[in-house]
């Protein structure tokens, strides 16, 4: 007969014990060498309490059991809540089926209010609400008529004199020009930050310094009504930039070199980060093209500036091919309608 595993275990547990030779116990007792006081003081480890020893062995089981118990409690609570919610839903359905669905006013009533109201009270309350609604309708009609009158006045004319209109227009244009200068400042700062990380070399294009530019909105001149800021850099195209970038891969040590130019206001941002306002419109002779770079070179002394009546030297227009302008985001793509940033109308 083939022995089973319990049989084997029983036989193994009943295995005879080898008997120690006589005299071994006495020999062991003679050889007892207990630790000395110094050893005890240096090496003695305090005995753990029984529960601690038990916990050392069983803490994984205890932790798992606690976790399971917590999960059970959570599930029980959820089940209870679900049961209550189901009961509430079934009660609501029953009320709806019986045509006694609670009215909104009753639902919003504070707790403790009587659900069984007197019909006369309800009628009185509804009348009050109707009166209030009628008053609101009258106010609304009055407001609408007044609004219509105001619209008529606006459409007939603002009622402002030509001088006032001109003043407002000028103020708006100044605000846009200042915002444009601010944009150029930010672009110049971004280019210089990029150059600091890349050996004083300015970025090859606007996309390269996208990490340094806070928003694509700074690439749009407020006076440029024909362009819109890109939603993000992934959607950026030349049509989303109003400014000319003229210092691609240039050196930021060339302080007088023009890095950015606004074709609308004529502001120029130089490689040193500064911005000169209205240069393109008021002093185009200060812009000198030399060695493929556009430089800002005002006269060293204001007294040396040519008199207003004198013929100003013709400033050479920077020549850039359409290819380069497209590359630096200065021209919209061929598919987009040409925005002609070179001759803008602010």
């Amino acid at each position: 007969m083939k022995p089973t595993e319990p049989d084997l275990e029983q036989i193994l547990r009943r295995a005879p014990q080898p008997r120690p030779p006589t005299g071994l116990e006495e020999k062991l007792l003679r050889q007892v060498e207990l630790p000395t006081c110094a050893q005890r003081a240096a090496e003695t480890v305090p005995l753990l309490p029984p529960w601690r020893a038990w916990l050392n062995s069983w803490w994984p089981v205890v932790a798992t059991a606690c976790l399971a118990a917590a999960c059970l409690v959570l599930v029980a609570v959820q089940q209870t809540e679900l049961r209550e919610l189901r009961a509430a839903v079934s009660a609501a359905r029953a009320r709806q089926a019986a045509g006694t669905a609670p009215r909104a006013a009753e639902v919003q009533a504070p707790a403790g209010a009587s659900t069984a109201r007197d019909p006369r009270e309800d009628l009185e309350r509804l009348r009050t609400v109707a009166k209030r609604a009628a008053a609101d309708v009258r106010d609304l009609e009055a407001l609408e008529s007044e609004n219509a009158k105001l619209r008529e006045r606006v459409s007939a004319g603002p009622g402002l004199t030509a001088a006032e209109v001109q003043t407002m227009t000028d103020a708006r244009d100044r605000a846009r020009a200042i915002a444009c200068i601010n944009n150029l400042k930010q672009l110049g700062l971004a280019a210089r930050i990029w150059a600091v990380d890349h050996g004083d070399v300015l970025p090859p294009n606007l996309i390269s310094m996208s990490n340094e530019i806070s928003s694509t909105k700074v690439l749009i001149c407020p006076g440029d009504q024909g362009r819109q800021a890109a939603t993000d850099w992934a959607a950026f195209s030349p049509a989303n930039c109003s400014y000319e970038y003229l210092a691609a891969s240039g050196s930021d040590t060339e302080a007088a070199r023009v890095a950015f130019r606004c074709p609308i206001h004529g502001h120029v941002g130089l490689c040193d980060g500064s911005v000169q306002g209205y240069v393109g419109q008021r002093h185009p002779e200060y812009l000198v093209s030399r060695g493929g770079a556009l430089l800002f070179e005002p006269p060293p002394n204001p007294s040396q500036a040519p008199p207003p009546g004198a013929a100003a030297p013709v400033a050479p227009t920077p020549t850039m091919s359409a290819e380069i302008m497209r590359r630096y985001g200065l021209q919209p793509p061929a598919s987009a309608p040409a925005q002609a940033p070179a001759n803008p109308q602010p």
Partner: protein
Amino acid sequence: MLMDPQPEQLVLAARAGDRAAAGELISRYYARIYALLRRLAGDDSDAADLTQRAFARIWQALPAFAGRATVASWMHSIAYRTYVDWLRSNHRAEPRSDEWWEACPAPDPSPADRAAASDLAATLFRAVDALEPAARSTVHLHYYQGLSLEETADALGIAVSTVKYRLRQALEALGARLRDHQHPLPRLNPQRQP
């Protein structure tokens, strides 16, 4: 000293220098330690020598006993490590069976003891001695020495799950060897060289 002190109390007393407590520990455990070493070493004199070495180590390790394991598993652990060190220091091969069970009949024969005295039990004990060392030491500690699974794991320095796995493997191997116990295993040379 208390009338029937717990083993942990005996260890604490021995640690404090109480020779009587040390003697009580010897009286309680030396036979089991000797039996373990006798089965593992396969020789009476080697087993007696190893028992003395094991108890010398036990006295040295008394201050380090922290109670994380039971006293029995702690002593068996030291005895087993003494045996392993002895094997390594002498470059010995694993000693094989010398039919120790034939020389030490059980004091009160019971049906199970009678079965152990039979050919089946002899074949089983011989098969245990032919197991690989890890499984053999686990079987010795758990079945022969009567240690629990946790105590066996503490004595061998392994996880309880490993003890269970080794015992399962050992029982399967023993069952396979005993399928035809009409053909008993050949007697192994106790001093066989690897």
